[in-house]
C-alpha cells in the first residue's frame, strides 16, 4: 500500500502541496486529475523520492521514503514513466531497459535481455531492440519508457502525464498498452488529462486542486452528476478537458 499522510511540500515560500492524504491499495488503478500547477507531478516526485518532503510522511509497503535505506526499497517497488520519456540517449533500446534490472536487481545480462525482449515484443517494438532513442518516434520512445519501468517488476507503476508530449495517434497507441496493463491487475497511479482514458481504466479518481485533494471518489461516483461533478471547480475542469480533447 502507498500511504501518503498529511503531505506538505514547499518550494521556498511557495506551498505546492498543502496536506495531502491518500492511500492506494495493491491492485487499484487510481487516476489523478487536476489543473496545471495543482501539484500532481510534485506528488508523484515525492513518492519516488525525487523531491524531498517538507512535512508529513509517505510510506510504500511500510518503507518510509525519507529514510535513505528505505527509499531504495521504495524505488524498487515503484517504477515511473515520465512525460518526456527521459530515456538514456546513448544506450540502445534494449540497454535502456536492462540497465536497472542488471545493476539494481542483480539479474544476469542474459536473463535481463530475455525479459527485455519479451517486453518489447508485447509493445510491438521487437525490431527496435538495437536502435537508439533518437531513432524512435515519440510514441515508440514512450513504449520503451513503459518497458523500462515494467522490467523492474514493479509493484506500483507511477505515470505522470505519459501521453502529454504525444500527438493523438501516438497517444492512442500508448493508452492502448496502459489499458491492457490495468486489466492485468498492476497497481497504477496515473496523472492524466485524458478523461476518457481515466474513466475507462480507473477504480478511483482523485482530484487535486491547488495542492489539496478536492475529491477522492470511486470512478462512477466521480463522474456522476451528483458526485464529483457537483463541485463547480471539477465540473469546470471536466468540461474544459473534454472540449480540449475534442479539438485535438
Amino acid at each position: 500500500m502507498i500511504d501518503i499522510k498529511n503531505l506538505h511540500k514547499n518550494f521556498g515560500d511557495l506551498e505546492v502541496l498543502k496536506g495531502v492524504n491518500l492511500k492506494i491499495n495493491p491492485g487499484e488503478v487510481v487516476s489523478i486529475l487536476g489543473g496545471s500547477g495543482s501539484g500532481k507531478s510534485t506528488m508523484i516526485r515525492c513518492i519516488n523520492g525525487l523531491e524531498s518532503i517538507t512535512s508529513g510522511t509517505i510510506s510504500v509497503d511500510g518503507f518510509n521514503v525519507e529514510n535513505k535505506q528505505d527509499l531504495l526499497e521504495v524505488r524498487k517497488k515503484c517504477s515511473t514513466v515520465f512525460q518526456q520519456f527521459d530515456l538514456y540517449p546513448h544506450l540502445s533500446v534494449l540497454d535502456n531497459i536492462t540497465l536497472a534490472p542488471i545493476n539494481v536487481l542483480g539479474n544476469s545480462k542474459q536473463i535481463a535481455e530475455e525479459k527485455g525482449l519479451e517486453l518489447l515484443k508485447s509493445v510491438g517494438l521487437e525490431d527496435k531492440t538495437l536502435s537508439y532513442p533518437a531513432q524512435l518516434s515519440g510514441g515508440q520512445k514512450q513504449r520503451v519508457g513503459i518497458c523500462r519501468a515494467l522490467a523492474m517488476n514493479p509493484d506500483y507503476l507511477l505515470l505522470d502525464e505519459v501521453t502529454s508530449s504525444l500527438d493523438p495517434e501516438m497517444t492512442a497507441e500508448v493508452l492502448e498498452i496502459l489499458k491492457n496493463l490495468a486489466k492485468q491487475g498492476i497497481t497504477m497511479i496515473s496523472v492524466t488529462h485524458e478523461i476518457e482514458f481515466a474513466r475507462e481504466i480507473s477504480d478511483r479518481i482523485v482530484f487535486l486542486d491547488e495542492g489539496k485533494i478536492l475529491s477522492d471518489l470511486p470512478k462512477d461516483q466521480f463522474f456522476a452528476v451528483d458526485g464529483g461533478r457537483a463541485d463547480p471547480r471539477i465540473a469546470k475542469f471536466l468540461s474544459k478537458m473534454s472540449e480540449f480533447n475534442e479539438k485535438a
Partner: protein
Amino acid sequence: MGYGAEGFSIYDLQLWAQGLGLTIWIFLISSILGLLIGCLIGLIRSYRVPVIGKLLMVISEFLKNSPVLVQLFLVYFGIPAIFTIDMTPGLAAIITLTGNTAAFIAVIVISSIDSIDKRQLEAARSFALSETIILRWIIFPQSLSVAMPMLVGLAINQLQVTSLISVIGVIDLTRVGDIINQRTFEPFIVWPLIGLTYFILAKTIAYVGTRLEKRFSAYRLTNEL
C-alpha cells in the same frame, strides 16, 4: 652553408629521435596525469563538494590564465626554494604541464557533465540506480562524447606547449632543433623539419581523436526514423 659551420651528420638523426622521444614522453605523462587530476577536480566541482571544490577552481583559474612559462619558472625555481627537493628540469616540466593540463581538463569535465540532460539522471535515480552506476554508465559515456572534440583540441595545444620546457634545459624536440641549428647554421632546414615533426604528431592526435569521437557519438549521429 655558413662560414665555420659543420654539415649534418647521422648523429643529428639520433639526437632528433631522442628529442622526439622526450617530447612524446613528457607530453604523454603530463596528459595522462593531467587527465586523471583534472577529472577528479571536475567531479569534485560537479558534485558540489563545498570549500574544496571552490578552492580547486581558484587554482585552476590561475593555471588557465597565466603564462605556462611563468608557471614553469615558478615550479623550477620556486619549489626548490621552499622544499628541499632535487628539482630537475624534466620533473619541473612534468609538474607544470600536468597542472596546466589538469586545469583545462577540469573545465572540460564540468562543462560536459553540465551539458547532459538532467531529467534522465532523475529517471535513473527513480529506478534505484546508485550514483556510482549512474556516473559510470550514464554520465561518463555521454560526457565523454561531448568532451572528445575539446579534449583533442586541448591535446594538440598542450603538445605545442611542451616546446616551452626547452627554456629550462630539457632536451626536447625544440631544444634538439636549437642544438643542431647552432652547429649547422641551417635554420631554414632545421626549423621546418622540427615544425613538420610537431605537425605530424598533432595530425596523429587529431586522427585518433576523430576516430574515437565517432565511436563515442554514434548515438547522436543517427537520425533516421
